């Protein structure tokens, strides 16, 4: 399966959210990274055909997704950033309703709904009204509804928002098992989530892809530019503000170890270290909060 965007552009008035984007996605898990306003959500909505591109197109195996209609949607699973629900529906009712929308038979809808509630840890709450759920529980329900039809293309917009560490691990495992022979695209601000499960990273900035590749490959971009420096704890904040700092760690000797991204050694005692995805994220998006 090949999902391809060709010169995909979406403008909102003068603002260009997605700018002449060309990307080809085949089976695998794609982590979409970018600061707020980078165009991630708009890109995902365009892929879901719930926003119309200003120009360009999206093709699945060579066919425009607009023309595919129901056929395309039957392959799709989508968790939006703001997940809407019916407050008076129970979790099971909601999944059964979405199953009906997705064309599942009554029997398989019940089976699949129960399986997924179990998988996201909500089986004990299946009969509870959604309005009584916490943010994390609603998010887990959102993940479950997206997977009801065993989608070949699963698009998850910030799926780990509101999940506690244990739930995030559960989610990562769920996606890892599910992702085989499918296209899974997930956006998140939690870089470590992407680092663990994404086979490919797509970094977006100002509506364009600035990086596309495997995590190890793309971090090599900043090889030799990540440093660790030990400073007195009293001066740590001052140093952190002066450099592009990805982490501060206090030691029990009254010192702080700063992790700094810089193309030259930031101070004399700086030690070069191996870059990770978070460093790369900060390298590209420091100060980017466009929304």
């Amino acid at each position, binding site marked *: 399966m090949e999902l391809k965007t060709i010169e995909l552009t979406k403008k909102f008035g003068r603002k260009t959210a997605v700018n002449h984007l060309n990307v080809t996605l085949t089976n695998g898990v794609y982590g979409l990274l970018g600061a707020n306003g980078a165009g991630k959500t708009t890109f995902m*909505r365009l892929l*879901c*055909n*719930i*926003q*119309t591109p200003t120009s360009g197109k999206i093709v699945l195996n060579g066919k425009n997704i607009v023309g595919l*209609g*129901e056929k395309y*949607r*039957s392959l*799709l*699973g*989508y968790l*939006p950033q*703001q*997940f*809407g*629900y*019916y407050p*008076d529906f129970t979790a099971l009712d909601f999944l059964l*309703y*979405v199953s*009906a*929308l*997705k*064309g599942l038979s*009554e029997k398989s809808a019940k089976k699949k709904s129960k399986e997924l509630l179990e998988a996201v840890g909500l089986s004990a709450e299946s009969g509870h009204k959604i309005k009584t759920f916490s943010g994390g529980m609603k998010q887990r329900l959102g993940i479950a*509804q997206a997977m009801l*039809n065993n989608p070949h293309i699963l698009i998850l917009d910030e799926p780990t928002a509101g999940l506690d560490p244990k739930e995030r691990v559960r989610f990562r495992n769920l996606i890892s098992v599910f992702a085989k022979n499918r296209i899974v695209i997930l956006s998140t601000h939690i870089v470590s989530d992407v680092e663990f499960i994404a086979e490919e990273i797509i970094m977006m900035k100002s509506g364009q892809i600035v990086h596309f590749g495997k995590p190890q490959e793309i971090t090599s971009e900043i090889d030799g530019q990540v440093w660790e420096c030990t400073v007195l704890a009293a001066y740590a904040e001052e140093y952190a503000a002066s450099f592009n700092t990805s982490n501060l760690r206090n030691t029990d000797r009254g010192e702080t170890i700063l992790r700094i991204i810089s193309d030259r050694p930031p101070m004399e005692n700086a030690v070069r270290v191996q870059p990770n995805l978070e460093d790369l994220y900060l390298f590209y998006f420091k100060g980017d909060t466009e929304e």
Partner: protein
Amino acid sequence: MKKLIQYELRKIFSKRLTQAALIALLLLSVLLVFSTYQNMYASDGKGCEGTGRTAVEVDKAIAEKYEGLLTDEKVQQMMTEFKPKQDLHGMNAVYLYQNALQSALFRSFSDLNGDWNGLSVSDVFGNEKIKIGYTYGLLKTSQNMVRIFVVLSLVIAIMTAPVFSGEYGGVDNIILTSKYGKTKCWAAKVIGSILAALIVTAVVSAINLVCAFILYGSSGLDCSILFAPVDFATGYIPFNITCGTLLKYQILLAFTSTISITGVTLVLSAICKNQIAALVASAAIYFFPIMLPVTEASSLFKIITLLPLYHTQFVSLMSVGQISGNVLYALMAVPVALIFMGIGVFISRRVFANHQVS
């Protein structure tokens, strides 16, 4: 599809505002039925008088004596029986109310003093055959139903307004990316809305009619509406139709109003981003004809009366004209309602399927 329609019906009827509106409508129906019943007054002029049940019994007993076709002999008999026994102190006898039949009689055949005005049945009604009997309770029910159906139209708007716009708060993302979101789900929404509206209209109509038949009986159904008490004199339907026909038309027009308002609200629900905006716009369109400076003499009146408000108000629409026999111009409301619904179906589909989530 059946399952999706069931879910749409569930969504419509589980909304708090809808439930509150339906309860209010039910209470209004019950209140109007029983306050009308309690406020009825009748006197047979021979010492038997009262309100409520007694009044209905007195009216029915008098009507029974004269039931059948209205003749000049019956007019004379009734004039003798109902002649005022007290000084009217200058009041026009037409406004003297003893009982329903007397009031109907005086409206057409009495002079200022309550004496026969010299007119014969054919002078007043031409060649029409006027069957008389106890119609007052049914006519009052019809009058009450006008108010109830106006409120019903608003309730329908309340029920229908969130059908599409209610999804725009976030569920649209899920619906429109699901296999049947833009096709069967839309159809289920439209069918669900129409079904819900028709069910509520049928239940409200049935409650009012059943109450009317229990309280007033059904003997007046084949009697003419022209021989009606003075409250139905000015501006009432001028055609010789029976009470039964009147009620049939009124119920039919309640349904055409329901279908029309559902069509209009579906369009607005699909267009508006929030349900309150859809509801307000729908109510504004419904009441808009009141603002129009069009009188009954105007040629535009025939068109204006085909708008949904006049379906529920129904008297103006039914007074426009008679096509033949018992067939009135009011039947034009049926194609008009279908047009409104057609517009609702067509536009809501286009708008919802092309809705851009935000």
